[in-house]
């Protein structure tokens, strides 16, 4: 059964371009051109045909998509990917902290959108899917169950803090995790401004896990926003 996607976007041309691209990938795409339209579709989806993922534009004719995100987060954890022309980093971070799964700045390539959608659907879309316990990307493997990290089939020793940081990224592999989320989850809510902790521990992790820490393949930086662990090769 194909995944149901709701695209909330007021630009007709972009809407139809995405419809073509997504339907080729086998997604069932519903579209809404306004907040009201989107609300109606989310509320009145027939039973068994609930929306699996929302692609949300921010500047809509009857309001800001941010409002819809807030409403949606109160009642469900349906994945939301924000697509917007706005480049303000502050807003990007706020949306991620408020529960958006990812953020794409227009213009974007379809490949990038599909990758982000895949990650978002895998993580939260279906409750029946098990949480990611084994992460593998190239030579890097993380086994959350046994707390083991291996690189090119050799064990890597991490300090507890390094491991906690890596494990937090694995939980959301493929998605950007903001500085604030990482700091709150690893160090505690009172440390959310101490981004330099992250710089230092991420540097240590890169030194241990990357072949060339200036050209990382796994631990990716989203400047000004947060970090992203590269999308896993496959789910074990």
């Amino acid at each position, binding site marked *: 059964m194909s995944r149901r996607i709701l695209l909330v976007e007021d630009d007709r041309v972009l809407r139809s371009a995405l419809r073509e691209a997504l339907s080729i990938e086998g997604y069932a795409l519903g579209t809404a051109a306004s907040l009201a339209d989107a609300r109606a579709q989310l509320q009145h989806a027939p039973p068994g045909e609930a929306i699996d993922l929302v692609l949300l534009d921010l500047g809509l004719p009857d309001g800001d998509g941010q409002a819809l995100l807030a409403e949606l987060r109160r009642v469900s954890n349906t994945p939301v990917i924000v697509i917007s022309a706005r480049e303000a980093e502050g807003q990007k971070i706020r949306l991620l902290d408020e529960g958006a799964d990812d953020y794409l700045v227009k213009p974007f390539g379809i490949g990038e959108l599909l990758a982000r959608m895949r990650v978002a659907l895998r993580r939260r879309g279906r409750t029946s899917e098990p949480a990611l316990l084994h992460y593998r990307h190239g030579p890097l493997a993380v086994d959350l169950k046994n707390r083991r990290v291996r690189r090119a089939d050799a064990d890597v020793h991490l300090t507890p803090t390094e491991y*906690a940081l890596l494990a937090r990224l694995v939980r959301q592999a493929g998605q950007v995790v903001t500085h604030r989320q990482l700091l709150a989850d690893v160090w505690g809510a009172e440390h959310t401004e101490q981004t*330099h902790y992250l710089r230092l521990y*991420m540097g240590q992790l890169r030194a241990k896990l990357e072949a060339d820490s200036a050209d990382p393949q796994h631990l990716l930086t989203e*400047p*000004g926003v947060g970090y992203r662990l590269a999308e896993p090769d496959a789910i074990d």
Partner: protein
Amino acid sequence: MDTKSLTRTILALLAWTIGWAAMVGLEGRLDLANLAMLLVLTSALSALWLPGWTSMVVSAVAVLAFNWFFVPPKFAFTVDLHQNALLLVALLLVNWIIAGLVIRQRRLAEAARTVAAREARLRQWGDTLRDASDPAAHASALSTALQEATGSVVAVSVLRALGRQPDNAAALQVGEPDNEQRVGLALCVRDGRAMGAGSGRYDELPDAYLPLRGRGVTLGAALITGLARHPQGHELRPHLQALCDQMGSALHRSLMAAQEQQARDQAQLQATRNALLAAISHDYRTPLATIMGAASALQEQGERMDGAQRQRLAAGIVEESERLARLTDNTLQLARLDAPTVQLRCDWESAEEIVGAVLRRARRRPEGARVHAWVEPDLPLLWCDAMLVSQLLDNLLDNGLKYSPADALVELHATRDAEHLVLAVSDRGPGIAPAWREKVFEVFQRGDAGPSEFPADAGRGAGVGLAVCRAIARAHQGELLLRPRAEGGCRFECRLPLSGEGPPPQSAPAAPEPLP
């Protein structure tokens, strides 16, 4: 009694003492008429020093005393001979005439002094205003000058721009007028005519309001309190008005000059903006032409093409769209950095992370494999806006890839040089001619001056790129420099100060507890 009039009184007393002594001493040897001459002389001398009316009284007393002491019968006010009576009357009259003349002379001198002082004040005021760059700042000087001239409390209200009212916040107020006086000042500015005491308008007011008149406009008003009660109020008025008008025309001149300057700036800004818009449009047209051509070919001839042809056209569309996106980012960023209130979102950032993110973006492009990056180990954290610094490096890499041969490396190095972090992008392109080394950083200067300087197809692209890079470096109190390389090609060096916001925090605690 001040020292000056004291000295004068003493001098007069001295004259009288000497005069009387002479008269008493010479009484036996000279006849009465000669003694009377001595009296006239003494009286004339004392009139020079004594105040007018005192001098008249003193000479009258002196004539009586002369009668008592010298005119027979002595020690009585009666007079024997008619001619002696005539002599006394003549004495009295002559003394009074002298005193009267002296009084008049003194008044004339006084008036001349006043006029001279006013002229000096006007002249000095004119000099002050002529040298003033902002006459509005001289409102307090005007207030002082008016206060000196009248001795009354003064308030001055000056407009800061043409066409505004003094109750507007933009007006400059000197002195402390009450509400009613404030309204009076505003009214005076609005009408551009004097009002209040002695002006013919609202004559019943105790205070006078004088406009500061420029050519055809009124740019403020002065309030002189209690001018109605001032003894010389009437004569002072033209002088005060002259002071005010000088201020008014100086204000007018400076406001006109400011307006002209503003108009010139505006025109210049407009010209720059037009050039910018023209250049942007030109830069957008090139990728748009590629996209348009490829997309319309796919639309109209797609069915007759094989898969590889279609793929090539589509790749062209994607590549040119990315170019357009970069161009848009740069243009937006340039506009943002140009704003006076630009706010950087600074944080402690790691050069390694910024380089890593930039490298990853570059790698997505087909020619990205040519980029080689190296980051010095153990670099300190940098206080910067990571988005901006990575945009700077994106642009430099884009530039390096574009202007160097397709098989040459483009190097991105992050190193430390004393108190600076140096982010350098080097390429093996043709280099940049010395004449262009500064110009490349100007908005929309591209090295399209001649084929000898750039490859023929290299004129396309990031017209704003290097200008944005330099703006970003400077927003971080850093600098972006271009250094030619001895072996060919060029090296763009971005130097950012490491001591941006105090010592960077270097320690971080371990997490309180590992995740389950």
